[in-house]
């Protein structure tokens, strides 16, 4: 007999991470999604909004409305939530460096609509630490950034009590290669850094501190090894319970509960045979729903075409339906915890806890997570873990169906459509957003804008909470870029270590060893023949923060003997061309995953030409649809690589041959 509805547990919050082109287009999408049974909103912002630039800033070129919705001022926010009741909605915003600003716009909008801030519920991601380590939308140095987080926490605890002001993220760490133990350890270190900072601010009385602890929620990942992942979540719960009790003396167990939302792993989703991603996603979801004690509060799933480009509404609907089948058709929600009492699970959980404790101690001994970010330690650990993963894929030790085994396939009907089976954002979006912003600037009260910005500067300098000043800015019509620049002027900017300087000899596996030796020989021989060692520039133009590919290409190139220049993410085409010139490199490799490859590659080529470097070979890699790859080649790009080119050795072989060809030497061909 099926259980009566009242006996079933409430399902988790079901979300779809979305937003694109403009506030208007995204609002339409949200309203259709809500009509389909989605129970909360998860807003994806475009990169200029996430990094505090206006749509008309030169740095925003090509990025406006691409990977998310552009929000330049309060009118955009109003349009984004048109006909959506803010007091009834649970809104999650993936926003970090500018979280205080987007929250201010949201609160300001609520005030304008006559809704008390106390009625708002939702989440601002607001975790800067994983931005430095993985996600890349940082702006300010660690000190001021942590202070902004503390300010939003202190503000919301008092004025927006249903808000989750920060979401400590381990999700992005796994996407940058972290192992389960690293995910546990670094997320908990992050939570400690946040809580310690709030405590140090002195704004919260001691007896109210447990409420702050209770407001900390997490955003985690679940990969394909779903048994281990399920154990990881149980380990998270136990570690958090102990930590909040011992370190922060939270005596009420309810306030010590580990609350988390999930996006399942996307790093393992493939471009080859993309339909297989559906099974992967469902299995990954299982990890976070199976154990009642460690069940997710909110879930968002990627789509089957994740590695091809942005999902279309139908792709997202399919992902939402996976959740609904799990929650409403299966009997999962009828039982208590089905893993309690299993010795196998318990042993795995303790093993993970042990490992995490050791790594937490290690980080604490280095002065805490901020110090370990500044020194580059954690980033190096992540780059090392990701390198191990890629090498295992390359050697075949880690099997990825359709990629390094079972590659033969019938033609997929899913990818046959003329649209490349991905979402195309509106090409007019950038221009329209700029026009809208410029019209907005003309229509506001300049004196009030100036006064509000001055008050923000004063608060930033004095150490007073920036939230009230930011809300005043929001209501005055200040723009995202103005808010960002005002704080840049006070706090300065920051670029974290790239982590690619991992020790080469401490790593045993080098992929296919014989191939590596052959490559080293080829690189050395070619260097001798042209007179100096081969030098490669790996460049990340634009606001794109996806660094994994660039890092791994850089590390691999060093391993096979290249001298490699890599200056990290978010550089302008001009900076990249200038580095290519000053460094005298033999080849430039660009990595772009944000979808802005056409604009950015063209600009880099132009900048190179203006420096007499028209003959310098340029290659590109990333999420680049086939037709775009052909257009890039027509522009003069020598080769384009996408995720299906998983063999870094093969890529290195190609690069050596490209340099040889450009220097009048014969090609050496495929590796043996």
């Amino acid at each position, binding site marked *: 007999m099926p259980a009566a509805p009242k006996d079933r547990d409430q399902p988790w919050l079901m979300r779809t991470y979305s937003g694109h082109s403009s506030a208007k287009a995204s609002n339409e999408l949200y309203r259709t999604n809500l009509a389909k049974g989605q129970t909360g909103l998860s807003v994806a912002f475009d990169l200029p909004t996430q990094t505090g630039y206006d749509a008309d800033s030169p740095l925003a070129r090509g990025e406006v409305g691409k990977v998310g919705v552009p929000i330049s001022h309060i009118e955009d926010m109003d349009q984004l939530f048109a006909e959506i009741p803010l007091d009834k909605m649970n809104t999650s915003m993936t926003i970090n460096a500018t979280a205080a600003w987007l929250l201010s716009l949201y609160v300001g909008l609520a005030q304008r609509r006559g809704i008390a801030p106390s009625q708002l519920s939702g989440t601002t991601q607001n975790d800067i630490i994983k931005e430095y380590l993985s996600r890349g939308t940082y702006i300010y140095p660690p000190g001021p950034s942590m202070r902004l987080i503390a300010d939003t926490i202190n503000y919301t605890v008092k004025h927006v009590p249903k808000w989750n002001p920060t979401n400590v993220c381990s999700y992005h760490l796994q996407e940058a290669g972290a192992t389960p133990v690293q995910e546990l350890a670094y997320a908990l270190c992050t939570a400690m850094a946040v809580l310690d900072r709030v405590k140090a601010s002195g704004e919260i009385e001691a007896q109210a501190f447990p409420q702050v602890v209770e407001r900390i929620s997490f955003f985690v990942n679940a990969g394909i090894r779903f048994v281990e992942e399920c154990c990881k979540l149980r380990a998270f719960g136990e570690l958090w319970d102990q930590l909040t009790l011992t370190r922060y003396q939270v005596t009420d167990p309810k306030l010590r509960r580990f609350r988390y939302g999930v996006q399942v792993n996307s790093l393992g989703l493939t471009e080859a045979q993309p339909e297989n991603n559906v099974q992967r996603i469902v299995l990954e979801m299982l990890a976070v729903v199976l154990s009642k004690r460690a069940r997710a509060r909110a879930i968002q799933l990627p789509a089957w075409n994740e590695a091809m480009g942005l999902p279309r509404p139908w792709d997202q609907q399919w992902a939402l339906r996976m959740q609904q089948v799990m929650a409403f058709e299966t009997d999962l929600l009828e039982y208590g915890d089905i893993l309690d009492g299993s010795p196998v699970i318990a042993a795995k959980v303790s093993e993970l806890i042990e490992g995490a404790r050791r790594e937490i101690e290690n980080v604490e001994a280095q002065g805490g997570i901020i110090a370990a970010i500044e*020194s580059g330690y954690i980033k190096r650990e992540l780059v090392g873990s990701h390198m191990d993963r890629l090498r295992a894929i390359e050697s075949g030790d880690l099997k990825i169906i359709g990629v390094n085994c079972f590659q033969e396939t019938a033609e997929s009907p899913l990818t046959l459509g003329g649209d490349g089976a991905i979402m195309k954002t509106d090409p007019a979006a950038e221009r329209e957003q700029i026009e809208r912003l410029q019209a907005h600037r003309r229509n506001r009260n300049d004196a009030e804008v100036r006064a509000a910005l001055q008050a923000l500067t004063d608060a930033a300098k004095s150490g007073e909470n920036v939230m009230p000043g930011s809300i005043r800015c929001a209501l005055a019509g200040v723009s995202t870029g103005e808010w960002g620049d005002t704080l840049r002027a006070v706090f300065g*900017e920051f*670029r974290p270590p*790239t982590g*690619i*300087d991992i020790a*080469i*000899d401490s790593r045993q596996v080098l992929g296919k060893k014989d191939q*590596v030796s052959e490559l*080293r020989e080829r*690189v*050395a021989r070619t260097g*001798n023949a*042209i*007179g*100096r*060692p081969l030098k490669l520039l790996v460049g990340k133009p634009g606001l794109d923060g996806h660094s994994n590919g660039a890092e791994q290409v*850089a*590390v691999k*190139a*060093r*391993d*096979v*003997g*290249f*001298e*490699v*220049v*890599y*200056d*990290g993410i978010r550089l*302008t085409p*001009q*900076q990249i061309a*200038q*580095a290519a*010139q*000053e*460094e*005298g490199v033999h080849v430039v490799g660009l990595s772009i995953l944000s979808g802005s490859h056409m604009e950015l590659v063209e600009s880099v080529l132009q900048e190179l030409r203006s*420096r*007499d470097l028209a003959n310098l070979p340029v290659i590109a890699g990333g999420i680049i649809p086939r037709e775009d790859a052909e257009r890039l080649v027509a522009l003069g790009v020598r080769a384009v690589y996408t995720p299906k080119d998983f063999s870094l050795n093969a890529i290195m072989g190609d690069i050596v041959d490209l340099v040889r060809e450009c*220097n*009048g030497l014969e090609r050496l061909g495929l590796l043996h």
Partner: protein
Amino acid sequence: MTQIVDLPDPEQLALRILRRERAAVASGLNLLDNKLAEARNRSARLLAALAGEHWLKDGHLIGITGPPGAGKSSLVAAMIREWRLSGRSVGVLAVDPSSRPELGGGALLGDRIRIKHASYDEGLFIRSLANRNQLGGVANEVWPMSWLMLACFDIVVIETVGVGQTEIDIAEIGDTVCYVAQPASGDTIQYLKSGIIEIPDIFAVNKADLGAAAHKTASEIGRSAPRQDRREDWDYPVCLVSATTHTGITAMLEHCDRHRSFLANAGWLDKLRLRHQRAWVVRLLKEEFGTFGLELLGGRHLIGQRLSENPSHQFAEYERMRKHIFSRFISINQPGSPTT
């Protein structure tokens, strides 16, 4: 061979470098890095074309050394900001370690990211170099490259690989050598004990923002530095700086300027540069051909004399000596010739 066709004409290149054309500076550095025989010939011609009186009198070569992580790159960035504000152009050579030859000998050149924050600046030029497993904290290429840069930038900075105790080479390149220490670091204390303390002209204890520990380290250095009295009249200043908060930087730069005037006024600047050039030629020859090679040229003393005769053509002279040794080697290895 096509790549030789692509090598630039050295005399024309020199003219463009003296006009401070960035593209020319870049291709000049590429040429100096090139080990093909024809490239070496042209390199010698390029440096000869750039040479002149000004080479012994103008500009300022500053070497920055110190243990890894002390903040050398960050400090160079802070110094650049000040120099650029005062309108001086800056060339930087940043040296990073290479992996061991059996591990491929590759290198990650990661200093640019620390040194450069401004977007585009015509007056700043950074070239990163791998040390290619040469001992001593710099690479051989640094010597000719720093001279090229001296021809077109007001200030040339060389950042060494931070290896702690062995980077003596920098003393044979820089007019002024700055040692960057970080607070309470074992490296620094060891360094103090090792006696190499006589090399730096200026000490900078970085990360002063970290507080008391920085003061302590500074006073420890202060106590040992003057004992060396390497050059009378020079006071071996110890400055407390913070690259992060940008404090103490102007004071440090004043010491740099003061040191340069000190050398120039005492008539030592040109002598020092000539001495450095000689030391490098001997070093490079010795590295390539061993003591035996030096003997073939008549020994260190004679080499020194030959170089002194033609002070602005040291590199060309070096190339001539190299060829001479080669020809001797070949004749020695001829059948029948006596082997000594």
